[in-house]
């Protein structure tokens, strides 16, 4: 099965791995710390987004994403250039997120930016809806949460998700299907959802 075209309306936040990443990594390994900034700038949005969706807390997500970058830098010598940088640093980020949850980071309702809507009632409903969706994502077991987050907020294909999670693409697809079923059950009735 080839890579699927993304079916969501938002821009992909994930930037495809290219030779620039390898060049930046090589410069870092040669001692040019400043070159790492290029990787941070390139991947900060996707890593932060993934962390926010995984943790449901902006401060905890910021800490986890920062820690992931720091640890990635410290472990650059172990990076396999045959892999994608995002797949590699994602595993580091997941560990940071798991550590944060283990340390009982309190889930506070997110307050996402309100969409431009017609009036205050609509804005409030939109915010409440997003909060429930985030809560539903957090309620998923990790293996299902990961695939939802990587598919919808990192814009990865089944193969790319499989590479990040070390599972076959067909397993990714199966988990996505199950994850959506569970989300549908939790979010049934939200905004006139189907029964």
């Amino acid at each position, binding site marked *: 099965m080839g890579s699927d075209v993304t*079916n*969501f*309306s*938002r821009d992909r*936040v994930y930037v495809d791995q290219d030779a620039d990443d390898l060049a930046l990594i090589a*410069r870092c390994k*040669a*001692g*040019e*710390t*400043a070159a*790492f*900034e290029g990787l*941070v*700038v390139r991947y*900060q*949005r*996707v890593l*932060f*987004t993934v962390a*926010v*969706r995984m943790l449901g807390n*902006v401060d905890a*997500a*910021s800490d986890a*994403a*920062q820690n992931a*970058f*720091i640890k990635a*830098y*410290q*472990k650059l010598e172990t990076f396999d250039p045959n892999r994608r940088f995002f797949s590699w640093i994602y595993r580091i980020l997941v560990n940071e997120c798991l550590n944060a949850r283990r340390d009982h980071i309190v889930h506070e309702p997110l307050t*996402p930016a309100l*969409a431009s809507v017609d009036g205050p009632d609509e804005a409030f409903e*939109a915010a409440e*809806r*997003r909060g429930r*969706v*985030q809560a539903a994502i957090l309620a998923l077991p990790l293996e299902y949460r990961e695939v*939802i987050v990587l598919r*919808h*907020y990192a814009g990865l294909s089944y193969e790319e998700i499989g590479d990040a999670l070390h599972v076959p693409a067909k397993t990714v697809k199966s988990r996505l*299907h199950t994850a*959506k*079923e569970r*989300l*549908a059950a939790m*979010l*049934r009735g*939200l*905004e006139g*959802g*189907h029964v």
Partner: protein
Amino acid sequence: MFDNDSDHVERLLDELGPAEPPAGFTAGVMARLAQTPASAHGRVVSFNGKGITMIRKVMWGLAAAATIAFAVFAMKGFPPVGNGTEGTIGAAKKYQTQQLADKDVVLGDAAVQEFLQSDAFDRLLKDPNARRLIADARVDAALRSTELRSAIGNADIRVAFANADFLQAYSRAELRQALASAELRSAFDAEFQAALAAGMRSEAAMRQATGDAALRSEAAATALRNAVQNAGVRQSVGDAALHMAVSDASFAAVLANMSLRSAVENAAIAQAMANDGFRAALTQPNMIAAFNSPAFLAAMQHSGFASALQSQQLHNLVSQ
């Protein structure tokens, strides 16, 4: 799950959308990197034949005391270098010991801190190739030249000398003589400008403009054209020290090493690089480890700083 349920979930997930990292996120990461060790792993250090594991922070704590003195010595001059260091610079060197008066020592001196915390210095410390180059006597001699350091710091000169064909052409005395001639440079510029205005980039146009039949390569022509348009390059072609360096592979090695180049571009580091003891210290692993110590930053603020500097025990440690 019905298709409409799946679509419903997709729409809700899409509505949540990506999240923007907080302002200053990148700067925060880079700032933490500046104070973070390359690895948190410990290593085994053998004492008296017995293998003893010593975590890095303990090692750094020991080295931090020597680093305090080193930071000041780098600015004020170094004490005599002891046994074991002469070989690193190819020849024995002796230095004058300078008495440090209290008034010469400034706790937490901002200039010293800025120098030691600069990214260029950090890169230099972490680059083993750069440190090996510094230990090379020829490179060592080149780096002591103010004119050469200035040339290395000039971006246009670096670009020109990075081109092998240009280097080959430049090595020819008659070309350098021509470029060094004020009258020829003036005429040269006019012809070059005319050629550029006409969009002529061929080697024939270049040969006609320079009268140099040896320029065969389009790349060399482009590099030479760009170089002679730069006042810094034109001035430097008459510089004997630069000429000697260009003839030496060591110069190319310095230009090719980004860490060294960046260090030379930094005024404070370039000044320190003129110091024999500083360059010798950069080749010593224990000093490198010390400079990577977070404890050093805290030690710089310690009230016992001045007393530690005058400690004979510390001098002995630095001289080892």
